[in-house]
């Protein structure tokens, strides 16, 4: 018989008709009335977290509450018809040309350009021949953009021009805004940030585009909101495809995660202002609450405490010793709790090893939480999601990007494992998880290994370019690294066996501070040309950066084996795991053979980095620099080695040399930030990180380090801007 009936349902438990004020009735209601399934356990540990109830899931959560997602959603909903025109174009000139309607002749040939330049030199003022401002909108736009570009190249301020209404769509404006920001930053790299801002704003103002929109990198996939989620899933586990039901959940997590660097702080918020430990020692009952006992139990404890007081005032010793009184007072102390009509031993009575206690409580809670989530998911149509997923998957094309995106993050297997067996316990191993795992294994078969897979950018404007290789080399030479990546990607999509294309792409990624992509590209280069020495060296360096010693050694060893001059020194048979000191010995032999070969000294420097003999590494790089003083990447290698051996002041001098030779060297900017941060100069480090991410908004490492520096510099106010990757705000706040 249910306990509720025992107490409330039967009048004989409450004689005198006092059922409404019957303390037993209240007790029973407190315990049982609230222990129905929906209310059972809805909370993460810590009562301040609100997990919405089922009914709240029904109402569509406002999308704008997800930080940083506004633009993506907007963009997603708007027609991209005219944007497509834009996307098919190339950079700079192509970028302009892409707005030229197909029927019209090219707006201005080389002659026209010369005229423009003549005008610059003849005229005293920085005036330009005003672009033709009539005709179809695309033609007007093309003129304005061209004059903006040439003013940037000529180093004179852009003059605002009156422009007739163009009737640009939101997506057009977004495209123009984004790409003009990126282009301006590169073209005007030597100018102060305010100047660049002013230039862009002038242009945007002329075109009647709201310049306050957030600046973004040029990359938006077909599912931008998904990318956003996945990008952030490194710190917060977010599941993009199920946004409808999970929106609130995601927001909730986002809120909790606002300052994860300040772990202590958020723990305090969750578990009460005073230290959890002392809390526990002083108030066992509160421990029960913080440990994860739900509100229903707390209410029950409150009720039973009142009841116990009432009962205790009765002096009858027989009653005092009764089992019932003991039961109630135990409940009031939280030693017994009631769940689903069953009495259980409460947590507070087991006071040994409270950390273990926390863990069990926590797991118990997580189980139920996961369970509940899964149930809600199911009811909200997880099946639909799964089938959507598989049908999407069969479409191929689009979806491959998604799979790549997914595998890039390398969360797939661990994540699934986590879900099925990890902290969430066996309870969540239900159809949804199975479904998910099936999809995962299917996607894995298709995408190959989760690592070392090159991830192409979406919507590459260089696809269809007549000679992307040349364009890529040109852009790389000019230091427009992010644009060069796009051009080179177009090249290797066109000619997948072009080893040089892959190699340059890898180098570009390395200079752009993205070793994962660099490794992936270099592996393709090596496939096409297994004996290319530059490729082998680059692979060795990138694996060293990723702290992957075994791989790094293997590539550097085969560098020696494949070298025409030193091949004789190294035994030709391939070894899977060469021994570090042996490889170093072989290279020292090579260095003795030809001391004037800078490359040997470079490899030696990398090898000494691997074995953490930094002084020797520094000496090797310095020798190499005497032979190749103009090699900016060599200056950066010297700087990085000095930084890793905690000689940050010297490192900064070396980085400065690298940046003098190559101002757009993102890696050196990021390294500069690291050196300042490691010296405790967080304010300075922030400025360098911001510069790095402004040049390459995809430099994830720099973003993460920026976040750490912001919190260390007590600039928590800027963390939101960092999380939403709002370059505008950050650059304004931290100009270099």
């Amino acid at each position: 018989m249910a306990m509720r009936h025992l107490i409330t349902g039967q009048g004989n438990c409450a004689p005198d008709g006092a059922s409404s004020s019957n303390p037993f009735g209240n007790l029973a209601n407190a315990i049982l009335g609230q222990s129905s399934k929906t209310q059972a356990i809805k909370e993460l540990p810590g009562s301040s977290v609100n997990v919405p109830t089922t009914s709240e899931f029904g109402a569509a959560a406002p999308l704008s509450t997800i930080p940083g997602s506004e633009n993506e959603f907007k963009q997603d909903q708007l027609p991209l018809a005219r944007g497509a025109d834009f996307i098919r174009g190339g950079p700079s000139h192509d970028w302009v040309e892409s707005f030229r309607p197909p029927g019209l002749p090219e707006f201005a040939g080389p002659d026209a350009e010369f005229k423009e330049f003549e005008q610059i030199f003849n005229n005293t003022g920085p005036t330009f021949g005003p672009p033709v401002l009539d005709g179809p909108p695309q033609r007007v736009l093309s003129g304005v953009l061209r004059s903006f570009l040439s003013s940037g190249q000529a180093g004179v301020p852009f003059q605002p021009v009156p422009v007739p209404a163009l009737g640009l769509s939101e997506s057009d404006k977004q495209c123009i805004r984004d790409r003009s920001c990126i282009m301006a930053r590169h073209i005007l790299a030597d100018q102060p940030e305010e100047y660049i801002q002013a230039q862009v704003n002038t242009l945007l103002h002329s075109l009647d585009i709201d310049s306050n929109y957030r600046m973004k990198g040029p990359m938006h996939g077909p599912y931008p909101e998904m990318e956003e989620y996945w990008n952030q899933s490194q710190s917060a586990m977010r599941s993009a495809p199920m946004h409808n039901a999970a929106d609130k959940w995601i927001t909730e997590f986002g809120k909790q995660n606002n300052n994860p660097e300040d772990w202590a702080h958020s723990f305090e918020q969750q578990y009460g202002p005073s230290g959890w430990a002392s809390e526990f020692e002083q108030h066992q009952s509160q421990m029960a609450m913080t440990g994860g006992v739900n509100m229903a139990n707390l209410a029950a404890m409150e009720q039973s405490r009142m009841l116990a007081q009432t009962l205790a005032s009765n002096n009858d010793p027989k009653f005092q010793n009764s089992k019932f009184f003991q039961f109630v007072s135990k409940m009031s102390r939280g030693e017994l709790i009631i769940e689903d009509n069953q009495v259980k031993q409460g947590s507070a009575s087991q006071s040994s090893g409270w950390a273990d206690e926390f863990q069990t409580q926590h797991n118990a809670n997580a189980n139920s939480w996961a369970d509940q989530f899964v149930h809600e998911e199911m009811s909200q149509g997880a099946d639909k999601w799964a089938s959507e997923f598989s049908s999407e998957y069969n479409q191929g094309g689009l979806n491959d990007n998604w799979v790549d995106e997914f595998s890039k993050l390398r969360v797939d297997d661990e994540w699934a494992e986590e879900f099925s067996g990890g902290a969430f316990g066996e309870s969540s191993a239900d159809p949804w998880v199975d479904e998910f795992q099936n999809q995962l294994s299917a996607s894995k078969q298709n995408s190959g290994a989760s690592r070392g897979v090159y991830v192409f950018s979406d919507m590459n404007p260089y696809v269809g370019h007549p000679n992307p290789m040349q364009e890529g080399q040109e852009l790389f030479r000019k230091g427009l690294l992010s644009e060069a990546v796009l051009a080179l990607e177009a090249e290797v999509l066109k000619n997948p066996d072009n080893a040089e294309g892959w190699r340059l792409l890898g180098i570009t990624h390395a200079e752009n501070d993205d070793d994962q992509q660099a490794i992936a590209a270099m592996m393709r280069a090596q496939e096409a040309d297994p004996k290319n020495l530059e490729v082998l060296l680059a692979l060795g360096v990138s694996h060293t950066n990723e702290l992957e010693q075994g791989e790094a050694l293997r590539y550097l060893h085969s560098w020696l084996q494949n070298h025409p001059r030193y091949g004789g020194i190294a035994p030709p048979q391939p070894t899977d795991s060469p021994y570090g000191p042996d490889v170093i010995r072989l290279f020292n032999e090579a260095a003795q053979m030809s001391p004037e070969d800078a490359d040997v000294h470079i490899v030696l420097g990398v090898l000494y980095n691997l074995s953490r003999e930094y002084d020797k590494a520094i000496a090797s790089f310095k020798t190499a620099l005497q032979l190749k003083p103009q090699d900016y990447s060599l200056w950066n290698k010297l700087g990085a080695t000095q930084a890793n051996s905690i000689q940050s002041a010297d490192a900064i001098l070396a980085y400065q040399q690298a940046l003098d030779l190559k101002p757009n060297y993102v890696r050196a900017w990021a390294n500069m930030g690291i050196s300042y941060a490691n010296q405790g100069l967080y304010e300075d480090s922030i400025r360098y990180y911001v510069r790095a991410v402004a040049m390459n908004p995809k430099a994830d490492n720099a973003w993460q380090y920026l976040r750490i520096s912001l919190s260390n510099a007590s600039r928590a106010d800027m963390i939101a801007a960092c999380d939403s990757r709002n370059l505008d705000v950050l650059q304004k706040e931290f100009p270099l």
Partner: protein
Amino acid sequence: MEGSNLKSAALLEQLRVHLASGAGEELVEKIGFVYQLNISPKRIGVDEEVFVVDLRKGVVSKGAYEGKPDATFFFTDDDFLAISSGKLNPQMAFIMGKLKIKGSISAAQKFTPDIFPKPSKL
């Protein structure tokens, strides 16, 4: 740190040098706890290697701590690197079961990414 094939060993070696360079004093003052790290190559608890980050004395060493550390962490090589570089929030790692903790939670809370020097890239 010698003889370890873990990626974490490289980072811990760097932390060791970093602490010895004088930057340690500030951390000792700010944190003042002893952490033991049990790091496994692939799965928590399998083939784990034990390191001690002693922020009471400002030293890093290999092998279990003699005595009782304030907190012991269990994680895999990759997850440790992700946490120390700011990629993975320790609180989230804990919730996801990627990080297990033994000992004092209040000591564990002070184990944050800013303890570690960031490796510079060649």
